[in-house]
């Protein structure tokens, strides 16, 4: 099948949607499909050979965080050229209501269109304001996918209709085969816990962990907190007590490989996110690496972890978090149980399973339809004449 995938966010910066697009594209290519990805990127960024740049990305504040997007007439022209050159059977747009390449592609394309909604918090004010403009092009989407139940609810309340839930995929094997690192592994006296993500973004939950640390240290003074991800350590340290700050080790942004090793090595992986998570991909990565997962009880996390694949604590409650951490660190048997159940649960999210569902959606919309083309050649008048004939005839 010839598949065109559009990512609204720049590949220059890692992020959930970009990673999803990259992994999906690579998995589909490995299955023998032709895949071309259109995404914003700076001219000098090295890109995988299946990615086509839609132009420079500009940092824009949208939907609560800064995203690197691309738009404008030049980008629109590049989108058109990409569609013409691709001869796609199906075009798969990600986040079609983000003001970037996806919405431009939706505008330009006629034919089988699949759209995936990732976010669970569409910014409703912007959406409502631009709604009359967006509505007709959204009607072109033949199949809608949501990555989680929360994302699906957003689709049904804001756009009407329904969406098929297909979760994010993970290359389970890449994490399962990660090597442990001695300096990250805990000992009985000095157990390790890990935090991953942009620490300065409050909804990632760093403040909750910071407040929980004194309680944890009171019970287990030797605990080490390994913090990986972009951000300024000083801004975090100065919010903590002196002892808590001393227990933290900042690793900075880590490579995919180091991330997997970190998850595989530590005693407990903590995800104290307070909201804004539509789907806990990081939890699945942690489970794949056989980490013991401790996460806040966000609905999205609860659906991933179910009853036994990890432990949960009350969202935003540092005392409950501390109690759970101490309980797990003192109970190696329980940790082993959770890690084993998590590894089993992760299989349901492996790309081999997820991509099959995505392909089923492609096949359903492609069935019997002609391939994707740009809408420009089919002028409105031509369509009107045709519709006049049709309605007169039947």
């Amino acid at each position: 099948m010839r598949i065109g995938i559009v990512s609204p966010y720049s590949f220059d910066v890692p992020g959930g949607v970009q990673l999803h697009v990259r992994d999906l594209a690579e998995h589909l290519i490995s299955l023998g499909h032709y895949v071309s990805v259109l995404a914003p990127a700076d001219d000098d960024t090295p890109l995988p050979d299946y990615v086509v740049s839609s132009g420079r990305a500009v940092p824009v504040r949208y939907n609560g965080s800064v995203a690197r997007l691309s738009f404008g007439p030049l980008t629109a022209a590049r989108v058109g050229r990409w569609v013409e050159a691709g001869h796609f059977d199906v075009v798969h747009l990600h986040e079609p209501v983000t003001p970037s390449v996806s919405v431009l592609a939706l505008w330009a394309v006629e034919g089988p269109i699949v759209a995936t909604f990732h976010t669970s918090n569409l910014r409703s004010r912007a959406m409502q304001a631009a709604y009359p403009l967006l509505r007709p092009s959204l009607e072109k989407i033949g199949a809608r996918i949501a990555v989680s139940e929360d994302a699906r609810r957003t689709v049904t309340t804001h756009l009407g209709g329904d969406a098929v839930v297909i979760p994010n995929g993970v290359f389970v094997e890449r994490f399962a085969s990660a090597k442990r690192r001695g300096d990250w592994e805990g000992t009985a006296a000095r157990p390790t816990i890990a935090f991953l993500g942009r620490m300065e973004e409050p909804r990632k939950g760093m403040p909750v962990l910071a407040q929980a640390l004194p309680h944890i240290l009171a019970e287990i003074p030797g605990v080490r907190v390994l913090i990986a991800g972009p951000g300024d350590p000083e801004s975090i340290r100065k919010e903590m007590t002196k002892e808590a700050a001393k227990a933290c080790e900042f690793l900075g942004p880590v490579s995919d490989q180091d991330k997997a090793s970190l998850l595989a090595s530590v005693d407990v992986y903590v995800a104290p996110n307070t909201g804004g998570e539509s789907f806990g991909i990081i939890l699945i990565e942690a489970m794949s690496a056989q980490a013991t997962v401790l996460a806040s009880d966000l609905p999205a996390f609860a659906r991933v972890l179910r009853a036994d694949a990890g432990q949960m604590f009350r969202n935003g409650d540092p005392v409950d978090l501390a109690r759970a951490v101490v309980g797990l660190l003192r109970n190696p048997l329980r940790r082993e149980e959770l890690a084993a159940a998590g590894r089993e649960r992760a299989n349901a999210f492996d790309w081999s399973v997820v991509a099959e569902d995505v392909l089923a959606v492609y096949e359903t919309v492609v069935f019997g339809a002609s391939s994707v083309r740009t809408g420009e050649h089919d002028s409105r008048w031509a369509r009107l004449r045709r519709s006049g004939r049709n309605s007169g005839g039947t």
Partner: protein
Amino acid sequence: MNLSWIVGAIALAVVIAWYVSYGAARLDRLHTRVEGALSVLDAQLVRRAEATLELANCGALDAASALILAGAATDSLEADTTDQRSREAIESDLTQALELALGEEALLRLRQDEAVGAPVLQRVATANQRVELARRFLNDAVTDVRRVRRKPGVRLLRLAGHAELPQTFEIDDELPMLVRGA
């Protein structure tokens, strides 16, 4: 005075013409989407009935279950595709027949039979998943058409012409025991 009236009338006519052409094109596209989705669903329903027939004849099921499945599958294949309501009932019956025939023991027996049973069961599962997808995409398209056709301008100007108002396709198509990992 006269001239400005004429200019105003022409401008109004242009706006109305644009609205009509735009609305008609939009509706045309939506109707095309519904027709496409309906033909996909039709094809997937046929595929599911054929897979069910295969399952009935694979020999791994008891004779009574096989008969029930074969009956429901034949009804589906012979259904009058123009009568949507009766077709919905027939397809729901087929789902129920599958649900009845695929009890725990039967599933176990089919999955163990790697030569015939397992692949046939897999075909039924795949076909049913496609039916679920196709039906959901059709109903999304129908919802969109009906929403646009409710708009006062569209109704007043009869932009939908004589095209029939499409109906959502309502059947029971959930077979939880065939979903992976269950």
